[in-house]
């Protein structure tokens, strides 16, 4: 005869089993076997053999990988910094001007909803050398004489993919910050007014400290995703010109899918892992703190 407590346990394990089996088979197993494969040399048609950390050493020695790591850092830091700024401006403006008007907020969140592929293609077309809206209007306004090589010039190409990424990502920052702003008690501002505080002081002393948890979580989450972005860069530039916009995920794709060098590709996939793991620990700690 089962006691109630045993019955509860049994039901618990039964209900959790599908999640556990699924995640074990299609997340944990691929992940662990990727770590193992990154320590082997595997060429199509031959069995894999163990090579220790040679793939990682080769990666670190390769000039191309260093460019990729640098590009990933530039892409991520630039995107996140601007998303933070525009997101905060959007949240403050929405909160103070239209009290978070649902309709306007809805419109502003659209870039975050529509498929990333659509966004990347649209930006590629916006920045088209001869017919893109950006160059045509810059010429019409007399800012430039001939079209700017947005996607053909190495540093402008990085700027272009960063712009597209910002456009996609800042609404998420803005709406998250707005939701946090709406929980800050009005009394704090009233008290500050009595003390004669200016709006700049109120922002630094009241607003920012009150919403810093949300700011931290949103920034960490977005950093994880941006660091491992693939879609925008792949569609707009294929990592080019040269390797000017090549980042971690596009590089893994090149090694694994295009060259079929599985060992090195696994090592490249795992390259951002230490940083991602740190960021994940950060998010988990923040979310647990909020729960308590």
């Amino acid at each position, binding site marked *: 005869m089962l006691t109630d407590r045993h019955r509860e346990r049994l039901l618990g394990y039964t*209900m959790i089993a599908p999640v556990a089996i699924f995640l074990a088979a299609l997340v944990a197993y691929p992940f662990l076997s990727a770590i193992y494969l990154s320590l082997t040399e595997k060429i199509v048609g031959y069995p894999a053999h163990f090579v220790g950390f040679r793939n990682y050493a080769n990666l670190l020695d390769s000039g191309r990988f260093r460019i990729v790591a640098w590009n990933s850092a530039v892409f991520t830091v630039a995107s996140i910094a601007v998303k933070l700024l525009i997101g905060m401006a959007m949240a403050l403006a929405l909160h103070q001007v239209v009290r978070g008007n649902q309709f306007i907020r809805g*419109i502003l969140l659209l870039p975050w909803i529509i498929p990333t592929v659509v966004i990347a293609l649209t930006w590629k077309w916006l920045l088209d050398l001869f017919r893109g809206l950006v160059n045509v209007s810059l010429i019409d306004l007399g800012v430039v004489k001939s079209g700017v090589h947005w996607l053909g010039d190495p540093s402008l190409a990085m700027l272009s993919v960063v712009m597209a990424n910002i456009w996609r990502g800042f609404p998420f920052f803005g709406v998250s910050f707005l939701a946090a702003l709406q929980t800050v008690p009005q009394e704090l501002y009233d008290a500050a007014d009595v003390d004669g505080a200016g709006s700049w002081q109120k922002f630094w002393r009241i607003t920012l400290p009150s919403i810093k948890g949300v700011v931290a979580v949103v920034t960490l989450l977005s950093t994880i995703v941006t660091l491992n972005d693939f879609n925008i860069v792949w569609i707009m530039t294929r990592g080019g010109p040269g390797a000017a916009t090549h980042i971690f995920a596009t590089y893994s794709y090149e090694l694994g899918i295009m060259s079929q060098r599985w060992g090195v590709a696994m090592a490249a996939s795992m390259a951002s892992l230490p940083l991602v793991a740190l960021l994940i620990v950060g998010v988990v700690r923040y979310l647990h703190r909020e729960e308590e």
Partner: protein
Amino acid sequence: MLRPAVLARWAVLALILVIVFVPMYWIVVTSLKTGRQILLSQNVYAPQPFTIDNYLYLFEESRFALWFRNSAITATASTLLSLLIGTAGAYALTRLRFPGRRTFGAVVLVTYLVPPGLMFIPLYQTFIRMGYTDSLGTLILAYPTFLVPFVTWLLMGFFRSIPRQLEEAAMVDGATRVQALFHVVLPLATPGLLAAGLFCFTLSWNEFLYALIFIADDSLKTLPVGLSEFVVSDFAFWGQLMAAAALASLPVIVVYIYLHKYMVQGLTAGAVKG
């Protein structure tokens, strides 16, 4: 007379609205132009005359309808699968006491945060080993790798907000725990289930990386992959491509109109990632 500070805020808001608006305007405007207008850069800002030929082309001469169908099947199936597995998991993790519960909850959160950009090569290898690539089923199994942790995490929040006493009352009245789940907890969690489902659909509908790599068969491609490989002999294919872009965005915009009010709740719970 407006104060300068208020004016500045309106200006910021207006500027951001313009930034958001311009690319969307460019999609629609381009999709309504003739090939000749695009090729010769005529009537750049507004089509004159406008045409719906680009939209007709998609259905008459491209595989757009097929891609649309593949996306709809994949997104619907992976959403239902994830809801089923995730709801059970979330209920167990919030309501039932068993050893290992807390650890498993943390594992789910960590799994949710691992980005696809890091997982696609390992997952592809696994599917190759299973001999199961190049089928819509591959994607229907692959998408829940990020959807299930998401659903579980989101619904744990919703379940926690439902008072235990309601369930306990039903059980005192003679209902079993499973009956209480179906008749008390799930009806109350409907907004959560709906939000989770709509989110899952959107994420699957928009997914590109896995679909690009796991599917080689042309007739099984999903919309994002079809769009990314959209090449026609016509030099001014941007008209057709932007028409396709507009139509591919339509389902998620419709979903979003319903989802919008739940979305902000999810955002503040920290359950959704950008």
